[in-house]
């Protein structure tokens, strides 16, 4: 079974966001594999351990993203691919076209991605890729069972707290929701091995896509920080007084309830 994992390198979730010259400042920031994509990497490796096959991790990104691919290889992925974005501000439409073009040239049974990325958070790329390749998809998956012989998968999907049990033929695309698994840490031998695993590089041209085809339909015109929240007031007294005063303040000052 060949599994392709779509991943993205993102800021560590503990990072503060700063803006410099109108853009997000990446200086000194710690980067990680997007946590939702990390669940996808882990699931791919587990499925390969169960059913055999191969795991490929692919991303659209700059050279900086090589580190995320090497981490996926150190976790246990077999090979990786880095696709250079056509522009720094390529949007989800452009990125998904690159990934779809890459996948068209290969045989695969499963495409796994994250439910969304913790940076842009659009939740579009993996599902767009599924549509471009005419694959069925199931989003926000917390459990995934593959029946290789039957060529089918059964997934549990998180739909706002309810569980939907979805059956789908392969090949298919799934996006990982938190709770799917507990990603492993790369081991030292894993990290050593990762250095020797194949990592291919592609450009849009390699994938047969023109600049016009990759024109982003959307564009960011401004990036800004929310106004800082002011600390309010502490409510004093014993617990009963605090509870009474809070309810009063919420009704009379905050006009709630």
């Amino acid at each position, binding site marked *: 079974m060949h599994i392709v994992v779509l991943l993205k390198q993102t800021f560590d979730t503990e990072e503060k966001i700063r803006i410099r010259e109108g853009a997000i400042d990446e200086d000194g920031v710690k980067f990680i594999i997007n946590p939702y994509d990390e669940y996808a990497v882990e699931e791919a490796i587990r499925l390969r351990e169960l059913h055999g096959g191969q795991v490929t991790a692919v991303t659209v990104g700059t050279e900086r993203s090589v580190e995320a691919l090497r981490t996926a290889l150190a976790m246990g992925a077999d090979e990786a691919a880095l696709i250079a974005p056509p522009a720094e501000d390529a949007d989800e439409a452009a990125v998904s076209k690159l990934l779809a073009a890459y996948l068209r040239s290969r045989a695969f049974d499963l495409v796994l991605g994250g439910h969304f990325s913790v940076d842009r958070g659009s939740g579009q790329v993996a599902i767009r890729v599924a549509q471009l390749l005419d694959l069925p998809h199931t989003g926000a998956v917390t459990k995934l069972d593959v029946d290789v012989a039957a060529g089918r998968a059964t997934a549990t999907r998180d739909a*706002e707290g309810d569980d*939907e049990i979805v059956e789908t033929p392969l090949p298919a695309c799934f996006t990982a929701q938190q709770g799917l698994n507990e990603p492993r840490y790369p081991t030292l031998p894993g990290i050593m091995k990762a250095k020797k695993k194949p990592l291919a590089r592609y450009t849009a041209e390699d994938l047969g896509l023109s600049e016009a085809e990759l024109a982003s339909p959307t564009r960011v015109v401004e990036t800004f920080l929310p106004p800082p929240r002011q*600390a309010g007031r502490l409510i004093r007294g014993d617990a009963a007084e*605090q509870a009474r005063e809070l309810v009063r303040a919420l009704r009379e000052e905050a006009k709630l309830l």
Partner: protein
Amino acid sequence: MNRTILVIAELRDGALRRVSLEAVGAARTLAGADGTVAAFVAGANPDAHAHRLLAAGADRVHTAERRSGEPYNAERALREATALYERLRPAAVVLGHTAAGKDWAPRLAALTDAGQVSDVIAIEKTEDGSFAFVRPIYAGKAFEKRVFDREPWIVTIRPNNFPVPDGAAASEVDADGRPDGKRETGAAGQAEGGPSESAIQPIGTGGVPDDADLRTVVREVVKRTSGEVDLAEARIVVSGGRGVKSAEGFRPLEELAAVLNGAVGASRGACDAGYCDYALQIGQTGKVVTPELYIACGISGAIQHLAGMSQSRVIVAINKDPDAPIFKVADYGIVGDLFEVVPLLTEQFKLALNRQ
């Protein structure tokens, strides 16, 4: 500029979602006075929902009859939306950034080679008479404004951020999107004097391919949150962290949420410790919520949690540790034991609500 904007409405447990009415309002902004807002709703007895969409400002509602309780299916939702899209060729499609909206909207975008701006919290008019879409990035640690360079536009809006249009009588929908029983007769009365039936158009089976060849099949839906308020749409969220100490420790929070008709959320710490389900997690991983009132109980306020809730209108923090970072973003802070304070709060809220 006579543009058509298509709203895809959504039901939850048989009731029209509040976010769908908010989407009609957003669509009206995009359509302008001369444009047309068309909506689509599928469900059992869709006409009742259609009347509410019309009251909210839709010019026309296309309907599809569905069996009651039929589960959501991404492929079917996409087919219906695509069929309508092909027929109406709208300049934009607007829908809720909900479990369903997140699931199929990107497929429609890919299919029509369209841009999509997800999770929009505000729409602003630009100098050239077009529109910019404001959305959170890094779960709300920052924001971006995006514009479209070509049509069609696909826009998913975050629940609770756009007003329900006046005509829709916001009071008909309570916090969790269910029609308020007391006002049901009022809603029907409004419909009688309202728009003509021709504003409601069943799409019929001709426009939509039949379901027999759907590849994905929803075998079962396990209701884990039955009867509860959806976290993302809740007007009030009561949230617990490590300070809650155990799964049982969430009981008092659940009782408080029930009194307030709110939803229960949690920090990553509480989820990782196994006190509650990951479906409740609020933060940069997990859900981002923007309720009217957020009550954080035993949550220290790690930056990744703050990202998910600091856009709430009013924040209350209850924590034993006076130095907890959560107090820096709280409008009201109580330094104390949540197990003592929360039940007292529940009593006080009950008293206050009964007086009304």
